[in-house]
């Protein structure tokens, strides 16, 4: 069965490694913070200027001066720090953040990503996404494999305006885990109960499929 958003977040959480500084985008990526594997320490950076972000506050303890990049009220953990926007993106462009997890509308087989604009329809802006994807060494995309009309969002070439070029390393969807290689998308894992055929059918891009494809483990 295809995963829900929580399933995607749980699978991505397995990519976290001890000592990582991680930037989480808005949407599914935010959920990843709830499923940090036991025994590892990671620290979350939010590009509006906080390192060491903690869980949401208890009712009545929210502080208007303490939010994340999604404008949600948050708390901080021991060892946290605040800084201005220029320093925050210095941290990002300077490759001090180890892993970036973000959402996407489309990803292409060369690692291009589109997630900020639908011409004529929706223009919300890129926020910090272009800075993040241009600099991060390790970018994982959390997204749905197909759109509401059933069309694949895993493409040979992006159709929407790009956010960054040749930058995505891995994609986790409700159906599969894909790695972006020099030859294109390589199918690494299937969601539980989802067949390789189901994944191929839902994917516009060519998939590199080698041997038996294991089911995701959680």
């Amino acid at each position, binding site marked *: 069965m295809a995963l829900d958003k929580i399933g995607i977040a749980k699978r991505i959480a397995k990519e976290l490694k001890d000592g990582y500084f991680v930037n989480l985008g808005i949407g599914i990526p935010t959920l990843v913070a709830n499923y940090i594997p036991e025994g590892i320490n990671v620290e979350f950076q939010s590009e509006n200027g906080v390192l060491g972000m903690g869980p*949401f506050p208890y009712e009545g303890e929210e502080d208007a001066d303490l939010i994340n990049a999604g*404008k*949600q009220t948050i708390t901080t953990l021991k060892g946290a720090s605040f800084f201005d926007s220029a320093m925050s993106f210095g941290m990002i462009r300077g490759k001090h953040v180890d892993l970036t997890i973000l959402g996407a509308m489309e990803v292409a087989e060369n690692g291009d990503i589109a997630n900020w604009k639908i011409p004529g329809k929706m223009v919300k*802006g890129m926020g910090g996404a272009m*800075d993040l994807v241009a600099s991060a060494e390790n970018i994982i995309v959390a997204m749905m494999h197909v759109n509401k009309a059933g069309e694949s969002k895993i493409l040979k070439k992006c159709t929407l305006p790009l956010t960054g070029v040749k930058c995505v390393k891995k994609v986790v969807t409700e159906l599969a885990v894909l790695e972006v290689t020099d030859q294109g998308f390589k199918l690494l894992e299937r969601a539980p109960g989802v067949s390789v055929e189901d994944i191929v059918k839902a994917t516009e891009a060519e998939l590199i499929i080698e041997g038996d494809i294991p089911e995701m483990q959680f």
Partner: protein
Amino acid sequence: MINKKVNSVEQALEGIQDSMTIMLGGFGLCGIPENSIAELVRKNVKDLTCISNNAGVDDFGLGLLLHKKQIKKMISSYVGENAEFERQMLSGELEVELTPQGTLAEKCRAAQAGIPAFYTPAGYGTEVAEGKEVKVFNGKPHILEYAFEADFSIVKAWKGDEAGNLIFKGTARNFNPCMCGAAKITIAEVEELVPAGELDPNQIHIPGIFVQRIFQGEKYEKRIEQKTVRKRE
């Protein structure tokens, strides 16, 4: 001590005229200069170019200026929270220059620090890079971006003293420090204004040299955009 204190928001915003370019601090509704925005609405200055990460929401922050059509052009990174903004932009009434957030911050910092331009990898290969010079450093393409040129910069801090020294709180810091001294005149509004000597020089985030006028805001609503809480166990 050079005294930067002015007695009212009216005095602080003296000289702001139609068609000027103004930087405004804040991220979402966090750390925005609320009192100064209210005064800009009252002054009814028009055709402004505003440099600010976001554009407020429909009935607060820069949304108040948009509602009265006082803004000709916005330079921002993310404007998704404001329906009126989207309407004015898609209809062509409002000119918009969307800029990657890190580039936006650096264009402020560059202006503050006397750096006329810089190269960044952000936006290479996208619409943002169109018409911009590209240069390869260490095998990676970067685009040339220029420092902002603005008439006024309006920031909000937590505490300040009469010398213009500023201390920010939490994530209300965001763009505010980068915008200090990044325009011809910097106006700081603070929640608490104290006499010089009362703030510990070790704790100052922005030295008063970057601030020309400082005043204590009359009141702060500090609206929360996305109140998110968890249940007590």
